[in-house]
Structure formats: C-alpha cells, structure tokens
C-alpha cells in the first residue's frame, strides 16, 4: 500500500483542524473531515488501509487531547473496518447506498465522539452540534460521490452557464 496519499490525507485533517474548520463552519455545523476521509478510504481501498488510516486519523483528530487519544483512534479504526466490511457485504453501486453508509458511519462516529468527550451534555449536543454537522458532512460526502461518479462534471457545470 502506498502511504503517500494517506500522509496527505492526515495532513489534510490537520490543516482542516487548524485552519479550515472555522473558515468552513456554517453556524455550529462543521465538517467531520477525519470520519469522512476514513469512510471514503474504507469504501475505495483495502481493509488494512481502512484500519490503519482510521487509527492514525483518530490520533491526529484528537492530538490536542492526549487523555482520549486512544478512544478516538479505536473508534475511527473500528468504523473504518466496519465500513469496509459493509461495503464488501452490501451492493454499494448506488450513490445513495454509499451515502447512506457514509451517513451511518458519520452519525456513529459523531455520537461516540460526543460520548467520549462530553457525556453530560449529550442530548443538547446531539441537537445543537451533531445533527447540523452530520447534515453538513453528508452534503459534502454527496458532493464528493457526485464528482467521483461523474454526476457532476466540469462540462455539465459549464453547460449550466
């Protein structure tokens, strides 16, 4: 497995956390880029890639909080593995099936992260932060799949104008 793209993804997660997160936030909703990338890797790459990339993405995503670093790594590695096996067992040709898997993975990850970080305010955070973030990240995922599957192309965009 070539590791260079994965290092780039990890750097992208870092850049998103440090610079882009605030700039791309819409109100309380921010893109859950680490989970998004882990799920994308799980859908298009091997099991090992999903496992190890999930683990390192979890580490990078929680690098500022050493006390929960292991939990984050475990959650993302498990989600990566699970998404890979779901992809293997389910027919994921449809963009909507991929999107559903993506949304499920994102929801589970966000809920688990909230449970790890702030257990007391769970229900408040679920409405105020988790669901907006899920919608925002889901839309980003749909955009990604639409571009990757050729539903949105430069030629089509040009034809609009």
């Amino acid at each position, binding site marked *: 497995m070539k590791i260079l793209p994965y290092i780039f993804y*990890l*750097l992208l997660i*870092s*850049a998103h*956390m*440090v*610079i882009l997160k605030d700039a791309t936030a819409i109100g309380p909703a921010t893109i859950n880029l680490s989970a998004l990338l882990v799920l994308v890797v799980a859908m298009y790459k091997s*099991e*090992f890639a999903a*496992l*190890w990339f999930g*683990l390192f993405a979890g*580490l*990078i995503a929680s*690098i*500022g*909080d*050493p*006390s929960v*670093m*292991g*939990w984050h*790594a*475990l959650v993302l*590695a498990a989600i990566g*593995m699970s998404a890979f096996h779901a992809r293997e067992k389910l027919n994921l040709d449809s963009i909507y099936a991929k999107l559903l898997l993506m949304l499920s993975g994102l929801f589970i990850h966000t809920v688990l992260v909230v449970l790890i970080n702030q257990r007391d305010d769970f229900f408040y955070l679920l409405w105020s932060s988790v669901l907006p973030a899920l919608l925002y990240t889901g839309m980003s995922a749909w955009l990604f799949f639409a571009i990757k599957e050729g539903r949105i192309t430069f030629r089509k965009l040009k034809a609009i104008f």
Partner: protein
Amino acid sequence: MTWISSVVTKYRRNINVFLALSICTILILDFFGINQYVSQGGLASFHAPFSKIKHTIEELSDVAIHNVELRQSLVEASLRLEELEEMKRENIRLRSVLGFDPPPGYSLLPARMMSITGEKNGISAVVNRGTNDSVAINQSVINQRGLIGRVMSVTSDYATIQLLTDPKNRVAVRVASSREMGIVRYSLSSGLIVENFQVQGRIVVGDLLLSSGLGGIYPGGLAVGTVTSVERPKEEPFCNIKLLPAADFSSLEELFILRPNNL
C-alpha cells in the same frame, strides 16, 4: 523462518487487527505516559506547520487592519495638524493686533471678513458686523497695519466695505514727514498712486503716507502706504507717485471698524 513467514501470511489480518487494538489499548490506558509523547510528536509534525501558517495569516490580517487604522489616524492627525497650524497662524495675527490703539475719539469694533469681491483687485468685502453693532455708512475700516476702506452699505448683521483698492475710492493723504498733501487712489495699471502732489513737493521713496482727515470720511493719522517710486515730469504740475499699501489686501482677515465715540 519459513514457518514464521507462513504464519504471518496466514494470519495477516488478525495480526494487523491485534496490533491496532494493542496500540489503542496502550493509548487508552496511557502506559508510561506515552500519550503525552505521541501528542507532542503529532502536534510538532502535523499541527505545527499549519499553526504557523494560521498565525502568519492572522498576523497579516492584523497588519492589514492596523494599516487601515493607522492610515485613518494619519489622515485625522494631518487634519488636526492643519487645524493647529491654522490656529497658530491666527494666534500670531491676533498677537500682533493686541495693543493696537485706535485714533483718538474712536473705538475699535473687531470684524471678521466673510467674502471679498473683485477680479484682479478686491473692490469690496463683506464683514460680520451690521447696524446691530452700531455700524454706519462711511465708518472707516482698518487693520493693525493700516487703512482698509470704508463702510459702503450696511444691513442689520453685515456691512459691505469699499476697499482702498476700489478705483472709485479716494483718500486724502499727507506725507508723514513733510506734512504735504495729496489724494490716493487705486489704478488698475499702476496700483496705488498719489494724485495732485506738486512736483516741488517734498516726497521721497520710503516716505509714509497717512490719511489727512480732510474729506470727513477717514480720520487723520491712519497709515495708507509707503512711497515706492517718485517721478517728477518736467512741464507737468504733479508728480507720479506709486505706493505700497500699508495693509496687505491679499490676506485680509481680522478687521476693525472705527466707530466714533460720540455715537
């Protein structure tokens, strides 16, 4: 060694999962405080470069904001400085006015010039004093340097001054040293000139000319101008005399209206 290789190949997936789980367990349990090292290493290698970029962007943004603020401050300071310079100039002018005594029998009414009319030379000027301040027609107007003109018309709040540089204006004058008399008027071609001054009269360049008080409009003793040239043409009864006005008509601001004390 072959059996190890075959075991690794056979249980590759399980070994990977076991390794990943082991790493997660070590991190969860924070063995030997390893999380701190991992965190520091990760921060240094992954986050630090982007933090630097972010700080640089924020600094540039701050610099841009400060730049705008400083530009605004600079403009404000420039305006303030200009205002202070103007106040300084006014202060100097007013200081020169202090201690300026009116001719006997008159009192000074300070007035500020509102506007001036005339193309090449000022003909008339409007000041911010009128009948409400006991200003009347034909009262003389001076400044600290000398004669300016006379009140030509007056309303309740404003008065129009006929300036000395109006060609229609005439002032009876006397040479301060010799006491010989003439009439001063303004000529568009020659500037301020003295008429009706006999060729035998005693006048030289540099002589000061004062109002004579004859004519009933201007009181005597007001500085009118200084002689700059004297020509005595043969076969003509009067000299050609040019004057430099005592007052600078190009920069009139604070004026004084001479009000007779018996009003």
